[in-house]
């Protein structure tokens, strides 16, 4: 039933996307400027997408990559006030408060925000703008489950002895999906999360340092023997698109009741001499041209409701209806204490 609902939700998004996009007026005086967009290492859009922005506004965009999301935020904080770029893209809700506390961004409310669900707009002062989102959920390998042993349904099921030795997760102190999954359990169980993880440990949960080692090392997909892994809601479409040999449907599925929502934001960096051009780029990042290009390049969902989803996403990507969430302030206030306790419970 839930699958059916999310299918209609996505189908709805696709229909809306057929409407015409209102074009933004181009601010004066930015023609001929060059601005720099600082991103994390997983960023890429199709060739020509940024050219569309240059055609509209006369502003050239240079891309600059700076490590993974955590490294990029840490280095942006070190260079606060004298940034290497004009716009930063890729800070997510688990690191957002740290970036806001460091006063990295110039507030800007894009008119295009009207197309973005308010649930994604976490900063009331509009210092950052949501660009995309995705869910971190337990993925399962379909072949390993059947009527006698159906895939687990919820976080509770994972501590059931029938699923002993089947789950691999990532260390929340070294991996963002690992942190997201820890946050999901904290959102679900409150103070009871410690007891929950003690039970997971008794149920022989495996821990890796990073996503690659979990997914390609211990999960069935890469030749490992564990059929349950913490990954993304968009992993099945990737498994489908990059299958070898091609398949009719992905070999993996997602447990939609275990998801934590990750939202990625962009913001105009304080200290930029190109404020108007930077704001125009934020507008552009919410345009359908840019938004529709996101899924197949970065395997996350566009934030704008007017953007159409590619076929593989419509067919094989599912979003949680009611994902787990915690406020960025809450995460920032407790992250170090939570991960410290987690280390004590699970690794020591």
């Amino acid at each position, binding site marked *: 039933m839930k699958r059916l609902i999310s299918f209609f939700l996505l189908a709805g998004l696709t229909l809306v996307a057929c409407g015409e996009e209102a074009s933004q007026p181009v601010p004066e005086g930015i023609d001929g400027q060059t601005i*720099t967009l*600082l991103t994390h*290492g*997983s*960023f*890429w859009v*199709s060739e020509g997408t940024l050219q569309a922005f240059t055609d509209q506004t006369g502003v050239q965009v*240079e*891309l*600059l*990559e*700076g*490590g*993974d999301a*955590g*490294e990029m*935020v*840490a*280095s942006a*904080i*070190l*260079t606060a006030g*004298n940034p*290497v*770029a004009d716009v930063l893209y890729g800070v997510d809700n688990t690191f957002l408060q740290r970036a806001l506390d460091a006063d990295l961004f110039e507030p800007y409310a894009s008119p295009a925000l009207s197309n973005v669900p308010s649930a994604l707009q976490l900063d009331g002062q509009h210092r950052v703008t949501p660009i995309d989102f995705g869910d971190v959920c337990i993925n399962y390998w379909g072949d390993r489950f059947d009527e006698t042993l159906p895939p687990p349904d919820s976080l509770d099921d994972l501590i059931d002895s029938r699923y002993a030795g089947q789950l691999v997760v990532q*260390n929340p*102190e*070294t991996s963002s999906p690992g942190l997201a999954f820890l946050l999901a359990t904290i959102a679900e169980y409150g103070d009871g999360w410690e007891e929950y993880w003690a039970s997971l440990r008794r149920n022989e949960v495996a*821990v*890796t*340092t*990073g*996503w*690659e*080692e979990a*997914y*390609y*090392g211990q999960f069935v*997909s*890469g*030749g490992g023997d564990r059929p349950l892994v913490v990954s993304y809601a968009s*992993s*099945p479409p*990737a*498994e489908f*698109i*990059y*299958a*070898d*040999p*091609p398949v009719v449907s992905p070999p993996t599925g997602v447990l939609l009741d275990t998801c934590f929502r990750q939202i990625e934001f962009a913001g105009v960096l304080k200290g930029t001499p190109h404020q108007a051009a930077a704001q125009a780029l934020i507008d552009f990042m919410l345009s359908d041209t840019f938004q529709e290009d996101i899924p*197949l*390049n*970065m*395997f996350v969902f566009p934030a704008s409701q007017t953007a159409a989803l590619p076929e593989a996403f419509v067919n094989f990507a599912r979003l949680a209806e009611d994902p787990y969430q915690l406020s960025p302030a809450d995460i920032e206030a407790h*992250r*170090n204490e939570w*991960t410290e306790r987690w280390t004590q419970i699970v*690794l*020591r």
Partner: protein
Amino acid sequence: MTLRRLAWPVVVLVPVAFLGVFFLWPVANILVRGFTGERLWGLLRDAVFWRVLWFTVWQAAASTVLALVLALPGAHLLARFHFRGRSLLRALATVPFVMPTVVVAGAFTALFEQFGLNDGAFRMRHTVWALLAAHVFFNLAIVLRTVGSYWEGLDGRVEDQARLLGARPGQVFLRVTLPRLAPAVASAASVVFLFCFTSFGVILLLGGPTRATLETEIWRHAVWRGDMASASALAVVQLGAVMSLVLVSNFLQRRRGGREQTRLVSRPVPSRRLLGANLGLLLVALGLPMLVLVERSLATGYGYSLGNYRALTDRVTLLPVSAMTALGNSLLFAVVATALAVVVGGFASLVVVYGRRSLSHFFDFGMMLPLGVSAVTLGFGMLVALDAPPLDFRSWRWLVPVAHALIGIPFVLRTVVPTLRRIDPKVREAARLLGASSFQVGRLVDFPLAGRALAVGAAFAFAVSVGEFGATSFLPRHPDRLTAPLALFRLLGTPGDVLRGQAMALAVVLMVLTGLAVLVIEGRPRGRGVVRGDF
């Protein structure tokens, strides 16, 4: 005369400026920025910190000893015997250097699985043994080649004499050969130790989630916890430890390094048993993980084929450029980094060997430090320090090869210095008596003699650059300048068999290209220079 007067200041100033601007200034900046004495005192009272420090030291020491023990037979073979495929073997041994850790970790895990070592009584996965095995895999070549090329130049008649006097082979090695090899062994050991001391990916991936070293702790505190004060305090400890280690190793090297005449050595063909045993050892230590990788790169959905390799020229939507272009970028950066490392490291070696005492000590010491400082400290330091004119380099395209060169310089220094020191002063005196300026002596005597060592250093600098990931990922860079290791990580960062297959194929191509490049770097025409034979 004017040329000579001009040349020496250049020889001194180029390394000083390079190290000063791109290393000392950034590192000092980042340390000062986050450092508060309080955090350091807090660390010193923390039991966890001492455990981490102890583990960092002993795993590096154990890795170094293992690499030394396993590499010496091979170094002997390379130094004393002539056989077909000798230079190929030497090039192949350097290849592990370029392998991205995540791929090696994958290969080792697959290997453990093959031999049933993932679980059970002889479990390797996530143990310190896995970590040591990987460190040996990465660092064997340093010993094999640094010691091997030095050994080649040693006068073999001393051993012959000992043998004539009735010494057994073991005695000859322990009491005659080993003491004379000491400078090269100390050189190689200090480089391996520093590499393992600041090893990052190997510890994270193969050590499992419970192992931590100073390097991984600095990264965790700076990046994941946003706690620059703790990260800086740890970085200060790391720097202090590295400095004392370098001082000790330099002292040992100087004390042991004696002058010795360089001789033409006739090299016999090794017996089959010797060759077989040596190759077997190297095959187990270096070959198996590489073979696993080749196997996996050939596996496609339809059985074994070259499909993954063919796909490398097409751009995947996830990547800004095709994997092949990324390889091209890596090679270009590596060429630039190697050139920088050879020039700066070569000049620095001259200063270490021929400079005034204090200058020599300063260079010997300073040029080693980049090897022992964390990639986080260096990367973040560059961002903070190089941000204003005239040093506005933060998004400069060539900052990546500059960072790579910093890591390559110690290799050049550590292979060239022992060789230069070994040169008999009489050769130089003779040249000078015949009217050569000291510049000419350098050009006509030192350079040809040190050429082989310089080539070995260059080969290492090249390999380090091609495979470097840590510092590269911290530096802001343009996406179309994606390097092969970064492309590989991105391919491995999304589910799907096609991407994984391509990543493996890319790793293999990276291996092959480095092997070839190392062959080219070292494949100088025979018989040129003052002393023939060992080059």
